[in-house]
């Protein structure tokens, strides 16, 4: 309510309405929290037990999606994603995972987890950097 009044006042006096920094930061913090929570959830469900019982088709879809996430994260400069790109390529080569050994699946999940952690760290750092710049 206070914010609405603030906007109205500014508009009436023909001054450009700028979204207050506090509100911008709140929006960013919310996004950061959602991202962190989602990554934590994925880390929780992206397990050997889950994938062991999944159909080869489902494994392929999951690995493909994780690879897409990795490509985007690598483009954004997530070091761990870049470093693990080769390894993730192997993960995606598990397209025919029907005959993949448990060791191979475990190894793939390990790489995926490292990458997801890296993405989480990157997002946190990026938000912190932006916050410092705003302040």
């Amino acid at each position, binding site marked *: 309510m206070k914010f609405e009044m603030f906007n109205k006042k500014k508009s009436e006096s023909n001054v450009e309405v700028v979204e207050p920094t506090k509100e*911008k930061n709140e*929006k*960013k913090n919310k*996004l950061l929290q*959602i*991202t962190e929570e*989602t*990554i934590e*959830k*994925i880390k929780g*469900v*992206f397990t050997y037990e*889950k*994938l062991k019982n999944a159909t080869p088709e*489902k494994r392929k*879809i*999951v690995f493909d*999606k*994780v690879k*897409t*996430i990795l*490509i*985007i*994260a690598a*483009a*954004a*400069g997530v070091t761990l994603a870049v470093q693990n790109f080769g390894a993730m390529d192997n993960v995606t080569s598990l397209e025919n995972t029907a005959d993949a050994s448990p060791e191979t699946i475990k190894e793939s999940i390990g790489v995926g987890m490292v990458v997801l952690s890296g993405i989480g760290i990157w*997002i946190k750092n*990026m938000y912190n950097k*932006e916050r410092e710049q705003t302040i």
Partner: protein
Amino acid sequence: MTTEELTVLAEKIKIGKATEEETIKFHEEFNKLIKEVEDLLEK
């Protein structure tokens, strides 16, 4: 947004050329992608 569009935006963010709106949009779309994996694994 397509993967290609997201990748281009990610590169803009990396070199500091993305606007705040673009950065927020990127995170929203990126979150959607992550959520898809989450949903897949939970099914």
